[in-house]
């Protein structure tokens, strides 16, 4: 029997497949058996009630979609009263995705959610930081380190930090998060994008710009997972365009300890369980007994260090 379990940032998961935040909710249990997932990851919650962005909020493009949903949130009390009890009946651990406009708000929210039934916090620091002119925390190493330190001090739960692919300095941001006490990194989020309607000459999204996800971004984020996994010692969770078993294996070879599946679920709602089935078959075919052996197993024998220096600059 194949051992599918992986260790990720303070948790042992039964398998490495979980949803990406924002693409998963209770209703999906009509399509897949929730107990087969490696973990649950909630849609991002905020302390403030939020209505979300102007319509339209999503547009499809070649190999993916651009969204600007804007994190509509029903707030913490609703989460504690309704969402949290719902997941108590299932076996996989519940990871709660959070976001906030300041480091102090982030810390307060993490503290409020540090309770029984929550297995880990995923801090979505790709959101705008109002203390830095709206620039996302994860765009810079300095602001990343600051907010992760505040989060670390606020919760004893495993702390996963979700980084943005929109920074030019991702390995440095990853190292800052690790230094500040993150238990794992989620790499990455959507890539800033836009589309224009040729009939109306207007942007396709009400918010003008949005985040690109889906197969279109997979090679880019795969490269970023590879860079981050080389830059830090804590586990990296790959998230970007994973639709198939092959995509998941590729991410693990690049250094991911686990993977998050998002946009693929919109197209194939059973994508996650299909990928889990496929991982078993892949391991059997390749005589791999422990799936954890795939993590970072990419071979770069051809490259010597100088050639790779531009990939992960020396510290």
């Amino acid at each position, binding site marked *: 029997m194949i051992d599918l379990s992986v260790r990720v940032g303070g948790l042992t998961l039964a398998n490495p497949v979980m949803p990406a935040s924002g693409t998963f909710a209770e209703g999906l249990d*009509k*399509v897949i058996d929730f107990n087969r997932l490696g973990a649950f990851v909630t849609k991002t919650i905020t302390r403030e009630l939020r209505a979300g962005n102007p319509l339209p909020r999503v547009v499809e493009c070649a190999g993916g979609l651009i969204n600007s949903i804007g994190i509509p949130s029903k707030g913490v009390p609703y989460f504690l009263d309704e969402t949290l009890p719902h997941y108590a009946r299932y076996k996989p651990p519940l990871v709660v995705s959070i976001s906030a406009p300041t480091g102090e708000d982030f810390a307060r929210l993490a503290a409020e959610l540090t309770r029984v039934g929550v297995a880990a916090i995923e801090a979505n620091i790709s959101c705008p930081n109002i203390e830095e002119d709206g620039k996302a925390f994860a765009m810079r190493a300095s602001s990343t380190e600051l907010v992760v330190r505040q989060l670390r001090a606020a919760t004893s739960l495993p702390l996963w930090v979700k980084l943005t692919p929109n920074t030019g300095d991702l390995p440095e941001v990853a190292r800052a998060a690790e230094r500040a006490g993150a238990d794992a990194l989620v790499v990455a989020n959507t890539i800033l994008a836009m589309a224009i309607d040729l009939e109306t000459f207007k942007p396709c999204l009400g918010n003008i710009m949005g985040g690109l996800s889906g197969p279109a971004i997979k090679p880019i984020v795969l490269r970023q997972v590879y860079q981050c996994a080389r830059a830090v010692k804590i586990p990296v969770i790959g998230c970007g365009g994973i639709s198939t078993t092959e995509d998941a294996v590729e991410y693990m070879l690049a250094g991911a300890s686990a993977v998050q599946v998002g946009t693929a679920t919109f197209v194939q709602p059973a994508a996650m369980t299909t990928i*889990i089935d496929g991982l078993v078959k892949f391991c059997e075919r390749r005589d791999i007994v422990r799936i954890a052996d795939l993590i970072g197993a990419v071979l770069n024998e051809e490259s010597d260090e100088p050639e790779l220096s531009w990939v992960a600059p020396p510290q």
Partner: protein
Amino acid sequence: MTTQSSISLVGTDPIFQDRTAKTARSWAPSVVGEDAEVLSNDSVNLEYRHLVVRCGAVAASAVPGQFFQLLCPHTDGDQPFLRRPMSLYGVNPARLEVEFLYKIAGAGTRGLATLRAGDAIDIMGPLGVGFTLNPKLRHIVAIGRGAGLATLAPLAQAAKANGTKVTAIFSARRPELMVSVELFNRHGADVVAVTDSESTSGPANIERILRGLCFCCVRDFNVGGEIVHRRVCWDGPVFDMMEALP
């Protein structure tokens, strides 16, 4: 804890032999994404096409008003990424068939139009909350235009099975673009057709037709010792006082 080796209901597929075996047996999906087989995909007039597919039991358990999400085939010109929602146009649980009515309007439906009998089409459903059809209803009115009629066809079918009479008001731009009249007739519905080209589809005319159709305002009247229902909006509002005192 459950034992791992005692469950073998799904043969040798290793995924079912791990600790999830117990839940794999007790849990069953109520929404399924599956490759259905195209049985036919024919034009019904210049604009609309009728797609019939063979599917699994869960999909064929769809009820009136529900819908499916179709993964439309890619063509040379179009690569639709997302699924397209499509109303249920007909369902036959015994024959494991579901039907859709669509108009070619964009990248998704252009792909659908390329399907031939024997092809596979990935359908996901049933989705949504359907109509509530009170078994006590004696007569309902269904109003639809264009592909919007698709939603109402299974309702007419269910109403017939229920013993509920259906009057259907169909709207289209021109008479030759009218669809589904025969289907609704087969379900025992009276069909009233209105069109833009005949200037019969405006709100005022629809309201005129609707008056008296809904039977919401009926009350009992005593006509020669027999209780009859009369519509306040149509037969009234002025009534014989003695008849109005049953």
